């Protein structure tokens, strides 16, 4: 590959790297795992750059979603439990000092969505992808994205001790 390819790839990562990391975090809910998801995707992207450079973001999203689902399947078969008696039970991933309890509850609700619904929510609403692009990333129809999104949002509101409803009532 040419130096031009490399420069284009590096420009892409500079522009979208944070977005991919944040998307990975939204998908898996943990920064360590998010990094583990992003790295191989970047390498695969670099390897395939000439073939994917017309839509590298779409390729990256597809790869992240696939990798997260693969990881979820492995974890489900062989649960990974981290023993940490000296810390409070995690509501979810680590967050910055600005996080409020409301935010933690919202993040916990997001994490409890099934992987596919979570992926739809992350791509459609947190990464601002279109229905068509979300469908392409997930390998499903636009109709499935719409219905999945609707179910996910309803589930976020009603499935748990209504963290989002509580947030709303307090405002």
């Amino acid at each position, binding site marked *: 590959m040419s130096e031009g390819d490399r420069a284009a790839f590096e420009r892409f990562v500079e522009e979208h790297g944070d977005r991919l*990391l944040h998307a990975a975090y939204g998908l898996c809910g943990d920064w360590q795992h998010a990094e583990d998801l*992003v790295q191989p995707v970047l390498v695969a992207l670099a390897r395939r750059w000439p073939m994917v450079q017309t839509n590298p973001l779409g390729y990256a999203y597809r790869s992240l979603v696939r990798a997260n689902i693969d990881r979820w399947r492995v974890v489900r078969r062989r649960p990974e439990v981290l023993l*940490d008696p000296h810390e409070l039970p995690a509501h979810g991933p680590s967050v910055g000092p600005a996080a409020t309890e409301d935010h933690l509850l919202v993040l916990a609700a997001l994490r409890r969505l099934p992987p596919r619904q979570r992926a739809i929510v992350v791509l459609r609403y947190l990464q601002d992808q279109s229905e068509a692009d979300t469908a392409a990333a997930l390998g499903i129809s636009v109709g499935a994205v719409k219905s999945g999104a609707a179910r996910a949002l309803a589930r976020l509101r009603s499935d748990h001790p209504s963290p989002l409803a509580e947030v709303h009532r307090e405002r």
Partner: protein
Amino acid sequence: MNDEQTITELRRAVGTAVQDHHLDPGAAATAWSAAHARRPRGRLVAAVAASVAVTAGGAAAVATWAHSNGSNTPTGGGSACGLTNAPLPTWARGGFSPDSYRTPHVVGKQGLIVAIPFIRLRVHQPPDAGNKVLWVSKAGYGPLRIEARLEGTSRTVVRTLPNPGPSYVDMPAAGCWRMNLSWSGRHDSVALRYYP
């Protein structure tokens, strides 16, 4: 609450969570180098190190992956460096009550030793905590040598314990440490993740 309000709250919460997390500026160059590294021929495994540093309020995490020449795709989906809460092997249950048989642990690849962390393993533990790991061997006693390599790098450390048993095992960096274990003429291997 309607969909729009739900989405707004989601964006607010996630926005706060991610605001201090950034991809390392060198990630692109590292990924490019890893993608185009020359691989040896034959059945040798080509280990490609790609590291990304994420800074968040001063905390740093290192993630790596290794690529085998038998596969055209990266391993993806994590580094398989986790614990299980399946029941302990029967030979490792001594001292545990039945309701503790599912204490998180990792069994060696050869099935000869079990590592049972008592705490989330960290590079920097609070002053009142330590990286206590209970090693239980199926057979054999005597000094336990641990040769640990940080996954995806050539960084290695060696620890020697008096015997398989309770110990404090510290690692100098966060990540997945692949450990080759030797004791009393026996050999096995485990992987343990250390957090920052």
